[in-house]
Each structure stands twice: as C-alpha cells, then as structure tokens.
C-alpha cells in the first residue's frame, strides 16, 4: 500500500506491506532509529511516539494506520539549536542509564507537560506507568520530568501550554509546533526559532 506520513513535519511517501508495524516503518524505512522496540505487546513503551497529538505504542500500530496523519518521534523533540526542556532535564537529572526506554519516556513526558504544565509527582508516575525502565527505578525519570516542568513554566512571555487538544482551534502541524516551541529555553535565554525551517525536521 502507498502511504504518506508526516513525520516530524516532513512528508514521507512509501509503498509498504499492510502488516508493517509503525515502529519498523520508522526505524527500517525512514532510518529514524531513535524510537526503540522492546516487547511487541505494548507493555514496555520503548516505542512510544505521537500519532497526531497522542502518545501511542508504535509496536502495535500498523504503518498504514498512520497514513495521512502526523507522527512525532524523539528526533522531533529538539529544534536545530537546542534540546527540548525534557531532554535537558533528563541529562541534568541522570534520567537515563542504558537509554533504551528514554525516547518513549521523553515523548510521554512532553505530552504530559503540554497537557499538564504543573504536574505532581503522582501525575508523573501515572503518566509513565505504562512504560518500563529497567535501570533507574523510575526515580530519576520522575525527577527529570518535574524539573522539565519547572523550566517549561519559566517562559518569559506569551502563552506556554496551550498545547494540543486544549485550544479547540486548528490542529495544523505548523501552528501546533510553533505553540509547543513557545516553551521558554531552560535558562530563560534567547528567543526560540520560529521559522518553519527551524521547526523540527
């Protein structure tokens, strides 16, 4: 089947077998190997990506189900010139060891913070409870997400967390990405790049 999927704001058209899993499409066809495959049964969450605005486990979604839709992977998290506050926080808090669960954890964390800018520890634990980490005992992942929330919230001006599903308006991808990018840089520093060329690859 011929499908066109918008992945990290770029369109990809491929002919794929109907049974091809989305995670294999991303990793093998598009060479986006940031998303990992860990269990096949939707239990571990190493493969979590966003389908439109929702985190999904891409090991149990067919690539053809993403036809005409938007997929955001961990490669889409950083802009050209800086890491997402979630990524910064994972680095700062020793939020990963082997790193295998990290892409999925970060995609869920970004979604949580876009929808709940000031989560409690319990909120964070609930959000990542469908994913498995074998290295951290989750402690430093939770700390990372809470730290990222703090830095997200440090935005100097403009609405920060009018994220997906909350504004009730257009869901066109450029607009959505721009909104997400209004989150302030971690140290409240320079302006974030707004041009489409700088938006996630």
């Amino acid at each position: 089947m011929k499908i066109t999927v918008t992945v990290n704001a770029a369109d990809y058209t491929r002919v794929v077998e109907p049974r091809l899993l989305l995670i294999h499409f991303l990793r093998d066809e598009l060479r986006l190997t940031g998303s990992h495959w860990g269990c096949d049964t939707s239990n571990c969450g190493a493969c979590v990506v966003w389908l439109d605005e929702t985190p999904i486990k891409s090991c149990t979604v067919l690539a053809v189900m993403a036809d005409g839709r938007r997929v955001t992977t961990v490669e889409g998290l950083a802009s050209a010139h800086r890491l997402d506050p979630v990524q910064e926080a994972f680095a700062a808090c020793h939020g990963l060891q082997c790193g295998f669960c990290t892409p999925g954890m970060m995609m869920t964390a970004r979604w949580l913070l876009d929808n709940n800018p000031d989560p409690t520890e319990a909120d964070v634990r609930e959000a990542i409870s469908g994913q498995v980490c074998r290295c951290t005992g989750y402690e430093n992942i939770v700390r990372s997400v809470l730290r990222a929330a703090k830095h997200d919230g440090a935005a100097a001006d403009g609405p920060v967390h009018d994220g997906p599903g909350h504004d009730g308006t257009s869901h066109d991808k450029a607009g959505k990405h721009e909104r997400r990018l209004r989150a302030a840089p971690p140290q409240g520093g320079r302006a974030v790049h707004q041009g489409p060329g700088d938006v996630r690859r």
Partner: protein
Amino acid sequence: MLHGAILRSPLAHARVVSVDASAARAHPAVVAVLTGADLAERGMAWMPTVFGDVQAVLATDKVRFQGQEIAFVVATDRYAARDALELISVEYEPLPPLIDAVTALDPDAPVVRDDLPGGNRVFDWSAGDKAATDAVFAGADVVVGCDMIYPRSHPAPLETCGAIADFEPVGGRLTLWSTSQAPHAHRVMYAVLTGLPEHKIRIVSPDLGGGFGAKVPVYPGYVCAIAASLATGRPVKWVEDRSENLMSTTFARDYHMHGEIAASADGEILGLRAKVLADHGAFNAAAQPSKFPAGFFHIFTGSYQARAAYCEVTGVFTNKAPGGVAYSCSFRITEAVYLVERLTDMLARELGMDPAELRMRNLLRPEQFPYTCPTGWQYDSGDYPRALQLALDMAGYDELRREQAERRARGEYMGIGLSFFTEGVGAGPRGHMDIMGLAMADGADLRVHPTGKAVLAISVQTQGQGHETTFAQLVASELGLSPDDVDVVHGDTDRTPFGLGTYGSRSTPVSGAAAVVAARKARERARVVAAVMLEVDADDLEWLDGKWRVKGDPDQALGIVEIARAAHSSLELPDGIEGHLDASAVYNPPNLTFPFGAYICVTDVDTGTGEVKVRRFIAVDDCGVRINPMIVEGQVHRGLADGIGIALMQSISFDEIGNCLSGSFMDYLLPTSLECPSPELGATVTPSPHHPVGAKGIGESATVGSPPAVVNSVVDALAPFGVVHADMPLTPANVWLAIRSAESRHPSGQTS
C-alpha cells in the same frame, strides 16, 4: 543486509526425527536456511558454554527445552524470514520432560543430557567444615530452619539480544556487532568455534540497552548469524523478540534451598548450614568463575559472626532454558544473602527479639577486618554497625514499630523488613578465578596526546553504568585534568585491550583499578620529563594538587598539559627515557572488594486481597570511595526496583510439561513507576584497602540486598496471622494463600 529468524522448539523434550526446510528454501525471499545438520558439517552445531559444558546451537539430536533453536532462516527482510519459519517441517518424537528439579535425581527421571555420562547431575559441591558445623548445631540452644525457593527470574534488559555478523571473504575478516557484556571473551569463543584466527575477528558491542548479566553468555543466535554470514558472504542481522528473550536466554536464580541457623538463647548466632538444589536448565551455561560451580554462594554467613558454616550444593539438568548466573547476582551471593537474611528474621521471631537488635548484636565489628569468614572469604573492610544504625535512624525505626503496633490494633497490617548484606565483587584474583580458562584480569590503555588530552581504552563495556563518566573522572583526577579532556573507548575489540568484560560489579574494582594504574604510570613518565624541564632531580618533585612541584618550592610546578607537549617535543631526555606519556596496565586484583549495606523496607499489606504496597525503602550503601555519587545512587535506584520486582512479581514459571508460562511482559511482570517508591538513600564510606582509590563495586548491591528486605517486610506484616515464611514472588495470590494456610495451621487465629 540479510535478516535471520530462528525456528524454535514448541516442546520441552523431544527427539528430532527430521527437519525438512525445502519449502522454506523455495520461498522467494529466502537466501539460506541453516539446520543442525548444516552446522554439523562446519563443526558448529554445538558450542562451548562459558562454564565448560556444551550447548546446541541448532538441535541435531534432541530438543531439551521449549524455545530451543532448531533452524535459522536467512531472508531479504525480517518479515519474510519469519514467514519462512512456518514452512519448515520438523518431526518430533516427544519424550517425557523433566521439569521439577526436585525429581531430577530420581532413578526413573527422564535423562536430559544423554550426551553426557553423569545423568541429570551437573555437580556436587560443598564448602565449609561439616564436622565443626554439626558440632556447633548440636550444642546450640536454638536451631531454626526453613525450605525456601529463590524462584527462576530473568534480567529482561529492555533491549533484547541481537547481532549483525559481517564476514568479508576477501580479507577473511569477521566483524560482529552484538549485544555482549564481554566482547573480548566472546571473540575467543568465536575463534575457537569458527576456526577463524582471533586477530581477524572484531567484536563491536556499543552502548547496550541494559544487560544485568543477560548478555554475558554466547547465544545460539549470535553463532547462527556468524554461520549465515560465512555461508552467504553477506552481512546477516538477527534480533530476537521479547518472547525469545524470556524463553531462551539466560535465566537467573532457581535455587531450592534448605537453610538452618543455630544460636544461643540470648541471640548469638553460632552457625549456618545450607543444602541447595540448583536448577541449571538443559545446559550448564552459568557464567561464573570456573572453580565455583555454585558461584560465591558459600559467602552465606553474610555479615554475621558465625563459628562454623557448611553448605552443599547439587546442580541438576532439567528441560528448561539454560543459564543460572545472571541478573546482578554477584555470582550467587544474591541467593546467599536471601537465605541468611530470611533465617536471621526467623531466628529473631523464634527468640522474641527485635530483628534490628539481633542483627546489631551479631554484625562483624570494625576491628575484625580484614575478616576471614568460616568458608574462607577474606572481607577487606567494613563498619557494619555504623551502616545499620544510619539506616535505623533514617527510617525512624522505633517510631515505625510504634506505628505498626497501633495499626495492628486497628486491623491494618504494615511490615518493616530489614536486610544487611555483604557482597564480594570484582572477580577476580587470577589464581582463583577464570572463565573458560581466561583469567579475570583486565587491561587499560591510556594515550596522552601532545595537547594534554587523553584517551582511555578499557576492556569492560557499558550498558548504562556510565563508564564514560566514571573512568574519565578516574584518569582526570590522577593526571590533574578535567574529565572533559579524557575520552573513554570501550566495546570494540579492535580498539581496546583484552579483558573479561562487565558483570559481577567488576568494572570499578578491576578495570577501574587498571585505569588508575595506567594513569599513575603516565604520571610517573611525566615526572621524568618535568624534572628535565625544571632542571631538578625527579626525586625532588612531588605530585600535589594536580601538578608536579618542586619540593619546598611548590610554585615551581608543571601540569600534565605542559609536560605532554614537552614529552612530544625535541626536549632532550635522559638516556633510556622514552618520550610521550602513554601507558598501559593489566590489573590482577589481589582480592575481591566487599561492599555492604543496610536496607529497610516498609510495606502495607491488604490482607483481604493480598496486595503488597511498598511504602518506603531506606537503603544505606557502603561501596567504599564513591567516584561519582550520582551514578552510584542511580545504580542503587535500579537495584531497589529489582528487589521489588523479584520479591513481588517477577517469576519465570512452567507448566508440568515444560511450557514456559512467562514468555511475554504480559505474563512476566516488571515493576512500574507505580510500584517503585522514591527511595531514601544513605551512604557510609569504608575504603577498600587494596583498591588503588579505595572503591568497591556497586552495580549489584541493591539487587542483592533488597529482595530479602521486601520479603522480611511482608512476612513481618503477616506475623499476626502466624506466617513465618512465604516464597517469592509475593503476588497477591501467594500472599493471600500464605495468610489462609497459616490460619488453617493456627485455627485460633492471631498468634501474636
């Protein structure tokens, strides 16, 4: 690139009558199919295990566990390879399976290994002084004993095993990218197995998605990928799926133990005895030093003074996946710590003593170190009472006991579980420890570039433990550099010196020591150069605050950056002095290091449903000098989650005909963020006297120490029902059953 997939046995025990792969070979996307017969022609149908046994790569005679490898399909894409597995026809003659290890030595038990002379017995092994121990027990006021099972579990790193084998026929070179915790040891084995010269084999094992011991053995999948690349002359990729990972790669534990502890009436521990039946599965593929068939289990007197101790271990084959030593177990010290810590709690109950008080009374005292335990291990250093007291203080132990009493009065059941553990890690002294005849020493190569930047190549390999950080710190601190100026290379046999790899918490004790020794050699080379530069005698220099300084005139000083430049310059050096600062070392540890810790786990048990909630986990660890406290704490966080998982939910189980009932993450449960509390960590520091920087291993401490704390806590919670022991995993069903069966033994109800 080609993709491989493995056909596996659906039966636990069967004779393989025939394997017909003709239909698979006719599949348009299939390039090759390898069967046991094909590998036999190359002498590769069987491979040596890391413990001196052999293991079938692809079955030629029988299948001996469910999931055993039968055939390897190589196709142009991964989906087609899987499709073609369905086209292979295997005729089996089913044989009665041996599943329960307890029956393995019965005269009428099915024989798993008819290729070996010893029936189902792998080994009989003992340690300690039997007569002295029996005498101590005969004279003791109190003896408490218990049967307990440390169930089979699986390390389940989030990344499964996989490899890409690339044989380049013209140059005769094989490159294997693989998930290996021990790339150099694997290279030796592949050289032996394939007949390729060792220097033509390169193993690349980059950052792994976790290992925990599961990636120490060589697995048939790796060998199949190599054989397929040799056969096709093309790169072949093989990655197992999660079910294959859980059903065929190395399990851990599976110890059936009977332990006894002897004590005086006032609570002095006098002796320990243990009799163990060890289930090794279908092949003896336990990855551990070859002189120790039961690993280091005989450290089972733990942290306490005992006058005598004796243990017997019998290993048996069963129709289950091979393995046994894996999962952060410090070569079976996990099982030993569980045994002694459960027995200590039972003894406290028997004597009516508080378990903390009983432990404090029997812990080794600081002045006893170095301490030789009854089974011969010499513990290097420790201050045990200090660690236990810190844990008790952090927990607010007395207050917890008061709260427990109040809750019990209200019909709420909370438990307070203690565990004190001593590990022995950093294998090992080469005279005593080897794997496949390879002594467990590790190398380090340090290059110091002309601008003072350094590259350290190490033989161990990271799976997330942060070697790049810790080892850079070690070198930087020896040379007065910034860690940013030290690059750490690992996981590539072409770029690193020989060594046995990362497991058994040996990286810092062995390889870390090698790195420090190499750095100190480089520093001594720098001293000679600095002496020439400063026009003084080398003996007149001292290393102080990161520089070589003239004694008595510390402002006359040179750092490594300046010295490195000069060492590469035309500066005239004394006769016999080479330029450059590069240095290498091979470190043969004089002894293991002995980290220890005191853990306290607080649980709340719903006695209606059997559900256990871990409310708090207090962990005080002493791993000697902490090179990077953040990384140390990260290691402890992981191990505490392991303890919760192993104690409460992780279990690889089988039905009576050998079907694995735990072949996916839906059945093999792992703890999530909701089961793991925020741990409360404490530290004491008792340096190792023989490690160059006083460090000990930490990678496995919490996995070793935490399961008994959890179980002790749950059993403590259930004490009012008369529960004295319950085997892991303490699932709601098992907890509920423990309560009900205790109640049926004590029909009057509460016993305390």
